[in-house]
């Protein structure tokens, strides 16, 4: 947002697992000329102050002519009733931000070089204060080899989304002279851009940012978003049928499994994360504007604006977007295979109108620390009761993401939790002390989505 930053690369003692001829750090950030605290105070006054993609009267009349009055009204009814904006994809936008790649504006066009035939390692770091980026390099496959500095089974995709605090290391094998590295912000108000080329000064075509997509019922309600209540929305949203079916399935699966757990009884009840939703009593107050009772638990949702891109004609056929389900730590990374001894559940909460963010409806000042025992194996369930994605960063220990079946998947330090999603991870706190745990959207953190974790 302001100030200085840099990348810190730690090379493994034994050398990199995947050698590369070229190695570039690609650090994305967002810059504002405003005093950041002034920007925050404006959000406290009017939380949509930077959103210039709001639904207008003429969008409504367009919808009326396309889908009829009733459908156009229905499309808006839930949002209007709930006082939520379907285009509330980010708090800030290009209205105040310039999106930077390695400190360079899109017009400045940061340039990284390679020689034809090189394997090029790109170390993507999201160093932005408050912006998710959707990154792609048209014409190049991206083979993700590390997430948050930890080796993963290589997975080849065309695009990935990451939030502040997350890092992805990606291998590419460029054959042409020039490629555009294109990183549009999640709310689609702008982009960061640079060029990979065989010599200085070459450029490749720069895509247009996608038009912003309305949040869907799934983002509001989770797994039940595809059910009867979402039926009318489903016809109108550009969201595909398959996604809906999928989320319904995962909801059903979670319910089945909790029943199995009850029947078997003798098995370790903590083998799988609990699917019983337990809202904190402090979620029933002025600090929370919505709670989700049917969260989705699947990890293979690329998220709003990235769903079914090929079907919608926005990307070439077969375009693949990275999801959390694609990430699997390479053998040996996840070294603690003990089942969890206990389970903690916390909810990510907020009130968009007041611009207040919290865990369990308690902003930092009202909260108490989460107390963990040294070297215990513990499961933490995070349920997102808001309509924004929160990159949750737990300091001082790893967050080892598991599936809703309790299958360990990938070691992260920052896990993005999507709207109305419920995820869980295991951790083993090795290091004593008080640690920070927060949403890495820094305004969310400052507004209260911040906890202390005590390891003792």
């Amino acid at each position, binding site marked *: 947002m302001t100030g200085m930053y840099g990348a810190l690369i730690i090379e493994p003692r034994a050398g990199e697992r995947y050698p590369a001829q070229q190695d570039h750090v690609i650090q994305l950030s967002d810059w504002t000329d405003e005093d950041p605290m002034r920007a925050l105070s404006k959000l406290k006054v009017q939380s949509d*102050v930077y959103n210039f993609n709001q639904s207008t009267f003429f969008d409504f009349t367009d919808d009326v002519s396309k889908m009829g009055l009733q459908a156009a009204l229905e499309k808006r009814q839930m949002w209007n009733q709930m006082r939520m904006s379907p285009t509330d994809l980010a708090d800030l936008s290009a209205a105040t931000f310039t999106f930077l790649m390695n400190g360079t504006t899109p017009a400045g066009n940061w340039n990284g070089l390679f020689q034809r035939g090189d394997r090029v390692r790109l170390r993507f770091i999201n160093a932005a204060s408050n912006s998710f980026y959707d990154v792609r390099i048209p014409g190049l496959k991206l083979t993700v080899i590390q997430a948050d500095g930890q080796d993963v089974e290589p997975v080849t995709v065309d695009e990935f989304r990451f939030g502040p605090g997350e890092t992805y290391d990606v291998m590419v094998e460029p054959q042409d002279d020039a490629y555009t590295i294109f990183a549009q912000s999640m709310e689609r108000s702008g982009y960061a851009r640079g060029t990979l080329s065989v010599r200085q000064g070459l450029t490749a075509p720069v895509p247009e940012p996608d038009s912003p997509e309305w949040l869907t019922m799934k983002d509001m309600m989770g797994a039940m978003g595809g059910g009867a209540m979402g039926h009318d929305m489903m016809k109108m949203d550009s969201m595909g049928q398959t996604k809906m079916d999928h989320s319904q399935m995962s909801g059903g699966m979670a319910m089945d499994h909790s029943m199995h757990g009850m029947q078997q009884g003798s098995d370790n009840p903590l083998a799988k994360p609990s699917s019983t939703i337990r809202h904190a009593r402090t979620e029933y107050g002025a600090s929370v504007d919505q709670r989700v009772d049917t969260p989705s638990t699947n990890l293979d949702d690329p998220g709003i604006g990235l769903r079914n891109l090929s079907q919608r004609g926005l990307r070439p056929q077969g375009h693949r977007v990275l999801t959390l389900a694609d990430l699997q730590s390479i053998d040996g990374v996840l070294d603690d295979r003990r089942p969890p001894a206990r389970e903690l559940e*916390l909810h990510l909460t907020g009130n968009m109108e007041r611009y207040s963010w919290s865990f369990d409806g308690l902003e930092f000042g009202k909260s108490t620390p989460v107390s963990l025992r040294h070297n215990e194996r513990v499961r933490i369930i995070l349920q997102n009761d808001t309509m924004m994605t929160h990159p949750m960063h737990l300091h001082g220990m790893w967050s080892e993401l598991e599936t809703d079946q309790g299958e360990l998947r990938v070691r992260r330090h920052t896990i993005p939790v999507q709207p109305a999603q419920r995820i869980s991870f295991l951790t083993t706190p090795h290091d004593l002390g008080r640690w920070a745990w927060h949403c890495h959207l820094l305004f969310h953190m400052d507004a209260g989505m911040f906890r202390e974790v*005590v390891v003792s």
Partner: protein
Amino acid sequence: MKRILTKPLTNLILAVSAFQASTALAQMDHSAMQMEASATTVDGRDPHAYSDGYTLTEGPYAQPGPRQLKLADEHAFWSVLVDRLEYQKDNDSTVYDAQAWYGTTFNRFVIKAEGDISNGTLEESSTDLLWGHALNAYFDTQLGIRLDNYRDGKDRRWLAMGVQGLAPYWFELDVAAYVGEDGRTAFTAQAEYELLLTQKLILQPRAELNLYGKDDLDNGLGSGLSDLALGLRLRYEFNRQFAPYIGVEWTDTYGDTADYRRSAGRDTSDTQFVAGLRFWF
């Protein structure tokens, strides 16, 4: 007509007052109520269950002395919104309607000021000094005083209690009941809506009505429904904080208020074209 109207209105005002009082009580009792709820409510997970009794300042590895880390949830913010600063052509008068607040997310000191300036002097003004407390996700209760000043009438002081916030379907509501000296009561309600024609061109319908429990001869206000104003303003937001507008405002008076105006030789209803500025900082 007047008598028929007055009694239900007084009752209404009393009912609103009672509601306000009970809400205020409920808010004050909040912490005690929550303690009980945690023991009995099945779904109400204890948000402090994972703390082992530690706090941000006590327990292992806590830093000595007062807590150093205070985030924005414990900081005070402030804002001044001048919703209407407009010239009314036919009256040759300037009207202002502003609201300022200072405080945290859930507790705020609020000032509302409304007034009418003509011929260089303040003809009448009404100023609320309020303590605002979050009632739920979208509404604040407001408790305080209101001071009315009249150049040609008699100043009034009121105890004020109200509710302000955002209703479903995005209506901005501001409703307040007042108790004054000599058993006077008053009730006001305002509603605003913002219709985005484009991202910057915004049409704002606005409605306001005033009721009084008792005739106020000095200030030309009758009991019952005294007046109703409907306005429509079209503004262009050069940026979100600065927007000039043009509009039209229609006001009508009723009951004794209308009678007083008639006997003073003034129109009972009025349509004004207005031009003004909306800005906040």
